[in-house]
């Protein structure tokens, strides 16, 4: 069992982190793909470069404490695109992190996001994208995306491994499944505190087992119990419990900046959007 969505709080030996490690052992979860989102920032969406660096160094200390359990997921805010790329480079190339985590600092169709995600795509690492499941109103203090903005990235970065976060994090999960379905590079993280019976089955029917990832997002029993209870083939469950995440985490040599994955000929509407905002194209 490999958990694709885990958060750490505070530096080790912070009590909640220790509880996480212990609960994971009890539930049989072997690996935790973990990020930290708070370091003095009131909400993750407002993390400054200083703060996301503190978060990532803290994750590094947790990895030192539990190297067999924790895999690092680098958290940045795309509202600081240059610093975000530098931190991603630092974490991936020098500190052994295995993925990128984005929160709701800005929407995923904001031109500041694409270069950062493209960088992750070049590294071959997965990108865990915080979303609301069908945005029907705005949350104060954040620019939350939903599956539509994840689809926007998927279209433009077909080589990126995009994980739509916590399908059961509250909201209309069926809307997310339907939106993500046509994009083979969008993977669905089934974590979240809601445990609607039938959700896993619906996601499995729509996108197949290969695009579903087991996760908890701090809802440990909920994450494990919903997959245990889902009425899908056992072989499919094996993929979801961990094999899919293991496959996503297989990268080429991350220090090699090989082929550009971004289409060379962007659509006219995309070019127009960039020029109307800040003119950055990676």
């Amino acid at each position: 069992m490999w958990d694709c969505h885990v958060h750490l709080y505070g530096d080790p030996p912070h009590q909640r982190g220790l509880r996480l490690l212990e609960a994971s052992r009890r539930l049989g979860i072997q690996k935790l793909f973990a990020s930290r989102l708070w370091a003095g920032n009131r909400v993750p969406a407002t993390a400054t470069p200083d703060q996301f660096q503190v978060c990532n160094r803290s994750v590094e200390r947790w990895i030192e404490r539990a190297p067999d359990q924790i895999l690092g997921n680098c958290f940045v805010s795309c509202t600081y695109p240059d610093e975000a790329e530098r931190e991603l480079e630092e974490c991936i190339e020098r500190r052994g992190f295995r993925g990128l985590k984005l929160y709701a600092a800005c929407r995923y169709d904001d031109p500041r996001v694409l270069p950062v995600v493209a960088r992750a795509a070049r590294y071959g690492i997965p990108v865990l994208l915080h979303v609301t499941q069908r945005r029907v109103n705005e949350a104060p203090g954040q620019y939350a995306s939903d599956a539509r903005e994840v689809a926007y990235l998927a279209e433009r970065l077909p080589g990126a491994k995009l994980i739509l976060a916590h399908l059961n994090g509250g909201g209309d999960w069926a809307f997310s499944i339907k939106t993500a379905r046509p994009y083979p590079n969008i993977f669905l993280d089934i974590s979240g505190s809601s445990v609607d019976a039938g959700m896993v089955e619906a996601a499995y029917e729509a996108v197949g087992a290969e695009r579903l990832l087991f996760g908890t997002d701090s809802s440990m029993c909920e994450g494990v119990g919903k997959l245990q209870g889902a009425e899908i083939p056992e072989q499919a469950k094996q993929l979801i419990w961990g094999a899919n995440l293991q496959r996503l985490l297989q990268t080429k040599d991350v220090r090699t900046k090989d082929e550009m994955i971004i289409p060379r000929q962007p659509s006219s509407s995309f070019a127009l959007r960039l020029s109307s905002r800040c003119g950055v194209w990676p």
Partner: protein
Amino acid sequence: MIVDANCHIGHWPFRRLWTATADGLLGMLDRAGVDRAIVSHTHGVFYRSPHESNAELHEAVEGHRDRLIPFACLNPDYAGWRDDLKQCVEEWGMRGLRLYPTYHRYALAGDGAAELLAEAERLNLPVSVSCAFEDRRQRHHLDTAPDLAEHDIDFAVHRHPNVRFLITTAPITVIDMVVRHVAHQGNVCFDTSSITGPLSDSIQTAYELLGPNRLLLGTLAPFEYPEVALLRVQFIEAEAQGMENILGRNALRLVGEEPSP
């Protein structure tokens, strides 16, 4: 013996449930290892006359009475509830009452409900009260009933000290408030269906607040995967007897069955 104190039969208008039938529910509970369940019918939430759903419930549990324990849904603001209650208890053998005050729009501690609750006391029927069904973040825009507030529970428990209340889908915050505010509270217990764990420690907190006799396993099946609630209970640090109580003995006591030692 594992007994689930919060299960349903019937459809839900805002999404297709995993199953709407008694057979389907039993299949779900079998898979999770649950032996028996207290059930009510979701149609009672929406029918103008909820008693119509009691007839459906009676029909649905026929042949499964060894496992499914039916609770009758009534609205004290709707005409004829005394006759309906009589039919539910005397003719159909229903074992408790199931109330939805926020959907039926009456105050649980108000004068309208008082007569029904007095009748429940006279008949020694337990009264199960639903705080909510779905997570607030994902409700359909027509699903506008508020969650049952802690003060509604406080006032009702205080006003009817001899009625045995089971409050379902209450979050830990509500349980905490009720325990702090109501001096006697011996007559109110809660199910586990909306209590998370173990990282938040809510499930352990609920156990410490309520003790081994007033916390009941509740899965909210078929809305939710029952395996989740069973996993949560495993994280409670309790004596073996306390765990047995939570998993089944408390529910059996509530419906008047003295569990075997």
